[in-house]
């Protein structure tokens, strides 16, 4: 292997950065220089990772539907466990999302995180390694390692830097997802023993007998439904989002939730096609309930972060709805919703962070009339708010439209019900905007807030560009994943059809 192992480099560069900070930077509450150095190193490392990930994107050939840039090393020979990494069109964007969001989080945390700055930088960099590792892993043990490894830094991020009820939120987050994952682990055992290797590519294509596949599917469902999260397994999310620091919420919404959607495509669909078809009614039912229920709950929230958290649950409902509609529109929609939600929900959490850093409250009622004194902020917030609603021209529209179209093709009632979610989405988002930005500017502390700083604009600018870019010219993004996704759909249809005739 003379080729530069770029996937490993992208994965482990942040970890090396974290190690460097741990060993060579002296932290401490009052150590201003040390903390500043930690921030600079972390930002530098994450930007270098971003640059590397662009090299990866450049080397990636969208026309090739197989796994690319594959790296393979023997790890535990006697158990046939290998270190295998590779990306295809489905995973490549998730890696990019991780590498794009991390530097933005680091940048935004400069004003938000005031204590244990060095440790926070380390935790975020470790988290980045785990996320990228998970999306590029092609060996089941490796996959599980990173999938679970995410919990470690996230538990600490919520628990150490979180809000008042952070302990409860951190526990709930950890134990809930851990419970789902261990069941997945047992399913992995069964699959590994059935196939005889832990290589994930060897498991694709419906190799499991139906009775077995049904149980395996349920075990994976336990894990991914919690992670996505789907109603009624979503209850950890509002707490985790509300209590996490801004950067934690951003990563949670931007990347961690996508692990569920990615898992559904990569494992449930590609490895257990028949069982996926079998459980499609359940998935669609839960998705529809999730979309409508979460939207209604969002209407009733008084806490900004909780509102956005529930909107996340609704948006992820579109993802699972699209996936389990089993048509090109639905799958395209699912991918697009995930892409768009990564930037839109993250940006909305960052927006909340902007005022939270100034006022230290997330109560919607504490604000009002900010359009007067913070016009730039009002514009930025408006764009992301409209993208969340799914206004044409923004990223949100493309995904939700396609996802609903997919659902409509599967069954017109599904399309109708999911459209209800879009209306409700417009309702809670516009209402939120009205309460925050319009009305009279009566509160003194709100009046005293300054508009966005240059650093904050630097955080939002790339996200604004991405959101509009996806909205106006989605083909630029679609072209990268489309061949792989179309191939996966074709495989899925033949596999789940072929066995139906048996």
């Amino acid at each position, binding site marked *: 292997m003379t080729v530069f192992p770029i996937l490993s480099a992208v994965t482990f560069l942040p970890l090396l950065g974290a190690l460097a900070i741990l060993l060579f930077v002296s*932290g401490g509450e009052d150590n201003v220089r040390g903390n500043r150095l930690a921030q600079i190193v972390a930002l530098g490392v994450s930007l270098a990772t971003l640059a590397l990930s662009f090299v990866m994107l450049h080397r990636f050939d969208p026309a090739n539907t197989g796994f690319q840039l594959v790296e393979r090393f023997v*790890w*535990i*020979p*006697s*158990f046939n466990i290998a270190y295998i990494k590779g990306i295809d069109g489905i995973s490549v964007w998730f890696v990019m999302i991780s590498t794009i969001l991390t530097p933005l989080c680091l940048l935004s945390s400069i004003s938000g995180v005031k204590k*244990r700055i060095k*440790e926070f930088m380390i935790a975020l960099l470790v988290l980045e390694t785990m996320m990228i590792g998970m999306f590029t892993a092609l060996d089941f*043990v490796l996959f*599980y*390692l*990173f999938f*679970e*490894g995410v*919990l*470690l830094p996230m*538990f*600490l991020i919520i*628990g*150490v830097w979180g809000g008042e009820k*952070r*302990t409860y939120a*951190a*526990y709930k987050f*950890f*134990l809930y997802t*851990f*419970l789902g994952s*261990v*069941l997945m*682990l*047992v399913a992995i*055992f*069964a699959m*590994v*023993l059935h196939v005889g290797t832990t290589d994930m590519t060897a498991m694709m294509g419906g190799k499991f007998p139906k009775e077995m596949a049904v149980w395996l599917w349920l075990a994976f469902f336990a894990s991914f439904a919690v992670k996505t999260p789907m109603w009624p397994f979503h209850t950890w999310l509002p707490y985790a989002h509300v209590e996490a620091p801004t950067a934690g919420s951003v990563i949670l919404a931007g990347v961690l939730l996508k692990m569920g959607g990615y898992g559904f495509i990569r494992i449930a669909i590609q490895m257990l096609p028949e069982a996926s078809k079998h459980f499609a009614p359940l998935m669609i039912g839960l998705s529809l309930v999730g979309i409508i229920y979460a939207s209604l709950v969002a209407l009733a929230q008084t806490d900004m972060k909780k509102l956005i958290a529930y909107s996340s649950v609704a948006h992820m409902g579109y993802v699972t709805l699209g996936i389990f509609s089993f048509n090109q529109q639905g799958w395209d929609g699912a991918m697009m919703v995930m892409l768009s939600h990564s930037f839109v929900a993250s940006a909305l959490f960052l927006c909340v962070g902007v005022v939270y850093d100034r006022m230290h409250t997330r109560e919607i009622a504490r604000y009002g009339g900010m359009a007067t004194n913070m016009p730039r902020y009002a514009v930025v917030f408006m764009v992301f708010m409209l993208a969340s609603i799914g206004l044409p021209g923004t990223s949100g529209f493309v995904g939700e439209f396609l996802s609903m179209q997919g659902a409509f093709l599967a069954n017109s009632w599904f399309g109708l019900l999911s459209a209800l979610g879009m209306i409700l989405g417009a309702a809670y988002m516009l209402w939120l905007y009205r309460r925050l930005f319009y009305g009279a500017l009566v509160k003194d502390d709100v009046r005293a807030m300054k508009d966005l700083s240059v650093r904050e604009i630097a955080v939002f600018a790339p996200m604004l560009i991405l959101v509009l870019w996806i909205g106006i010219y989605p083909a630029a993004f679609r072209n990268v994943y489309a061949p792989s996704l179309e191939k996966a759909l074709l495989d899925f249809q033949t596999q789940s059809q072929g066995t139906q005739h048996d």
Partner: protein
Amino acid sequence: MINSQSLMVAMPEIEVAVVGLVSLVAAAACGARVTRHIGLLAIAAFALAGGTLFCPERLSHLLNGAMPVFAFGTQFVDDGFARFVKAIILAASSLSILLSWSAFEKDGDARPEYPVLILFATLGMMLMVSASDLLALYVGLELQSLSLYVLAAFKRDDARSSEAGLKYFVLGALSSGILLYGISLLYGFAGTTDFVSLAFSLRDQAHAHPGIVVGMVFVCAALAFKVSGVPFHMWAPDVYEGAPTPVTAFFASAPKLAALALLTRFLLEPMSGLTAQWHQVIVFISIASMLWGAFAGLAQTNVKRLLAYSSITTIGYLLVGLVVGGKSGVQAILIYFTIYALNTLGAFAVLLCLRRGGKAVEAITDFSGLSKTNPVIALAMTVLMFSLAGVPPLAGFFGKYFMFLAAVKAGLLPLAIIGVLSSVVAAFYYLRIIKVMYFDELVGALDPLPDWGVKAVLGLSSLAMIGITLAPSPLIEGALKAARGLLG
């Protein structure tokens, strides 16, 4: 009966015994000031014994270690399994001596009897691991147990330590009695005490007289007491709490492994014909231990008691491997235990760092804010606790991975599911320590840290939790070789 071949087979044990006797005399002659020297001597003896164990010269006398070799008639056996387990025991004993110095010195309890007792306990454990006869089994077990009773009561002026020693002794004596009764039943109904003949006469279930089954169950119960499997676990939390912390660290590592290895050999060799009978017993102990250890641990406020419950849960997982049986089961046991022993020794090393105002503190709340005053120790403890909880990518995950993989492979899906679910419950109490260290406010600065011995153990074990993930193959291959040594 005693020939040079036998002496060659038992050479490591002989070395430990000789050093033990020499240091006993030295300890009696020189008193407390030679505590560290004798400790170092004991570690050297363990290193020597470990070297001898795998010395090619010795192995070349023993059919190159390919087959089990007996000594002293059929009392004693040396095979790949025994060598692997002994290596772990020797390492764990050495680390326990390193852990002991600074804590005992600060409390004014530094006495050279400690390394001497560890030497004899280790000798007993080595005999247990190699026992191939019910009599050798009993002698080894008693040598070990007597040393452990004294160790538990090592702080003779401390009421809790004396209580722990007494409690351990009374219950231990009871279990020894049960063991002897079981042995006598086995001897009475099978007519032999050596493992090979027992296996031969029990190879066919039709010959299994109920008396033999009862005897076997008694031996299982006694050994379950030694490994603290539910429902024979009651002593563990009290003794763990009362015994001096270095002694508790030792209890949690080497003796557990010795008793487990003995149980493994006993059930898979002489009792392999009665698999259907002992399966029920071990399955029950396994499930009960996993669940009780996980749930009862939730209510603990003392870290040593917590670690006792953690060890009870662990025994539950390890017994899953025994139920699985075969090479994959034994391999999983050995992988899991090696990781667990290192892991738990590291956790006790952290506990030994926790002193405030000249006194050792051991409540969970005493960890509060540790990440502020001692970030390195807090980080190490975080790694160790996540590893105990079995969260990847740390080594503890691999222990569970291979264990439950073997269970699913053997069709023991319910055991695997109970196992992973109980590990979620147990994760709660490991997380609590991390939570207290990172989320809670500081209760006060620690005393200066202990000497290099504790730090070395702490560094070694926390780095091993990461290192084993990076290069797991040596451990896995070694465990496989050991399992082949036991089962051919």
